[in-house]
């Protein structure tokens, strides 16, 4: 199997516990707004030339945030984050508002090239169009540095730009939907994000339009001591379809960095949004030093009839992951899906899962979660499936599988199921297994090396989730998983 072979070659090519994306881009940067205060919020809002109502919205969020307490229910532990010691704004000096590709600092283009994200609108050679084109929004620290294929998407009626630009260019659309899925006071981190969010993507697909290419946003944290507060909003009008992919990396630093994101999806009648994440933030070194604290609120609202939202995530990075991409299944016959692979190694702590809130009749959902723990990591699946009174014939199928590698890691499954409608049918299956010595010996006896055997067994374990990823990313994700597990056996 070529993917396994490639994985092995990649793994061999790098040193133990070397995070591939750990380099720092040496670029002059504007950094400001230290400490969480009204002044910081105003500074951010002014930097972005936001309309007045947005500034007020942020300030309101900040006031509410002051009343809130940090949640402690997740199975993660970390020292208290000093929000007043953080910078809330960092931007490469060369960036002043969105630019076209040829105006972008070559240093930044080189950074993305190095990350494997080519920021170009591929040359069309002799009239042959490349097959799998992906439009990219590149977010570097607090700002979006460029968005590709904007013009071409516009021709199809699709708006794809940074949220900062959307606030200036399409304020009515943003105002209508922002905070409509994740309310300002939804939770501690979401409220914080509402006050100080920096940049993220905005996607609007009009009625009946099938977005002509994959959209993706690539988040990079470069600056030290800077929080990244991503905000993304995706709207699919009636009968629209869009597939979106999010990727993230950060340099290898000794201190922890905070990424607190809010992502909102809205799907109207017959619309479909497919949202995939390949999360590869710096996970900390082998002694558990450094790494990203990833506190994320992601929620999709299946607002219309027959709408569908599907979350697929491959989580390999971050020192701490606190993340529950959810679906509110409001529309009749709406469908929510959650496919997840969470890999933890070293001292990583993962508390992740989903919520499927069934409100509409005949709504259905499916959850497939695969947790893989190695090293001294702890990996928790936490999920809620609920059916409200009107959700007749709601259906859910949940499958949570955990795979343990080694003796010192832990896997935990915490499912919550609530049903207020007698016709709802919820099924839950959970398994925990270990890569057994017998499986290893069997593979070795057939000539596989230890690394090949682990890669093969793990790839088999995550297969049904990998199949949900857009083709181009499936192989990438497989490699990433094996690299994350490198050195976990033997």
């Amino acid at each position, binding site marked *: *199997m070529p993917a396994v*072979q490639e994985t092995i070659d990649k793994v061999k090519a790098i040193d133990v516990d070397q995070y591939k994306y750990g380099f720092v881009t040496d670029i002059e940067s504007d950094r400001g707004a230290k400490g969480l205060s009204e002044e910081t919020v105003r500074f951010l809002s002014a930097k972005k030339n936001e309309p007045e109502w947005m500034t007020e919205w942020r300030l309101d969020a900040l006031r509410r945030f002051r009343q809130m307490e940090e949640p402690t229910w997740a199975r993660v532990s970390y020292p208290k984050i000093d929000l007043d010691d953080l910078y809330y704004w960092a931007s490469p000096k060369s960036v002043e508002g969105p630019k076209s590709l040829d105006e972008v600092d070559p240093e930044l283009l080189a950074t993305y090239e190095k990350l494997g994200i080519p920021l170009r609108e591929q040359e069309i050679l002799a009239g042959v169009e490349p097959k799998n084109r992906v439009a990219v929004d590149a977010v570097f620290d607090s700002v979006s540095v460029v968005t590709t294929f904007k013009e071409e998407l516009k021709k199809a009626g699709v708006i794809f730009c940074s949220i900062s630009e959307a606030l200036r260019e399409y304020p009515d659309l943003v105002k209508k939907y922002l905070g409509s899925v994740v309310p300002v006071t939804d939770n501690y981190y979401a409220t914080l994000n509402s006050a100080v969010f920096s940049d993220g993507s905005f996607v609007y697909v009009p009625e009946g339009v099938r977005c002509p290419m994959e959209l993706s946003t690539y988040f990079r944290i470069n600056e030290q001591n800077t929080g990244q507060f991503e905000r993304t909003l995706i709207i699919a009008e009636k009968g629209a379809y869009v597939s979106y992919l999010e990727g993230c990396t950060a340099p290898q630093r000794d201190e922890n960095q905070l990424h607190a994101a809010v992502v909102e999806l809205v799907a109207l009648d017959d619309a479909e949004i497919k949202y995939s994440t390949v999360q590869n933030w710096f996970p900390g070194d082998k002694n558990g030093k450094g790494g990203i604290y990833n506190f994320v609120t992601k929620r999709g609202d299946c607002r219309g009839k027959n709408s569908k939202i599907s979350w697929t995530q491959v989580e390999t990075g971050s020192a701490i992951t606190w993340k529950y991409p959810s679906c509110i299944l409001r529309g009749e016959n709406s469908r929510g899906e959650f496919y997840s692979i969470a890999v933890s190694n070293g001292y990583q702590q993962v508390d992740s899962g989903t919520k499927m809130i069934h409100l509409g009749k005949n709504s259905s959902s499916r959850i497939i979660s695969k947790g893989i723990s190695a090293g001294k990591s702890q990996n928790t699946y936490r999920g809620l499936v609920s059916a409200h009174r009107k959700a007749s014939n709601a259906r859910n199928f949940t499958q949570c599988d955990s795979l343990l590698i080694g003796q010192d890691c832990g896997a935990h499954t915490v499912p919550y199921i609530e049903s207020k409608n007698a016709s709802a049918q919820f099924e839950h299956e959970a398994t925990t297994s270990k890569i057994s010595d017998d499986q290893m010996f069997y593979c070795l*006896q*057939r*000539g596989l090396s230890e690394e090949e055997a682990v890669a*093969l067994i793990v790839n088999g374990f995550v297969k*049904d989730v990998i199949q949900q990823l857009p083709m181009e990313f499936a192989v990438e994700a497989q490699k990433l998983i094996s690299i994350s597990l490198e050195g976990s056996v033997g």
Partner: protein
Amino acid sequence: MLEIKNLHARIAEDETEILRGIDLTINAGEVHAIMGPNGSGKSTLSYILAGKDDYEVTEGEILFNGENLLEMEPDERAAAGLFLAFQYPIEIPGVATMEFLKTAMNAQRKARGEDTLSIPDFMKRVKEAAGHLNVSMDMLKRPLNVGFSGGEKKRAEILQMSLLEPKLCVLDETDSGLDIDALRIVSEGVNKLRGPDRAMVVITHYQRLLDHIVPDVVHVLSKGRIVKTGDKDLALELEKNGYADYIDTAA
């Protein structure tokens, strides 16, 4: 091809001695049957040949084509041409049988410094070998050994054996769990692999497998020692009289 000299071994965990001085020489082209009652050390011998961690060799040595087998890792032994057909083949969920075959074949080729197989070449080999063993395309797409019947598991083992083209085949109770028809198919698969350059060790309780795979030499193992060696008639005698005589001899 294989020389076992005064081999003593025990279970690593509780130090129970299982093998108490085995001497055995197997030449290329020969098929040796090893028979013996439960607990005589037959399976242990096969695991030690393949390099399973759970056992400790306390004395003696094993040479495989002149090389010190005990110093090799399990995957190195496989690449050098040692194959163990498991009594209880292990399930690998999510990994299609076909994919496993390709990974294993290419891993061994790579270890020997050969090129990996092209897809058409690989497919041709699999189709041919699968045909002989009555292994369907559908079965090749299913995850290896997951939900396989007893017969399917054993056929999958022999399929791997024929594709990996080992020099020494160790078959550990390949007849267990097989009905008459499956036994015939598996035996024919094994017999096809007999050749002047290949040796086989067939471990079994029962004579009936040896009706199909006729051995050149039969050994009786009891309490960790080879207590009797003969030709194929020895198996017939055992079938008639049981192991009682030899157990006493060993004691």
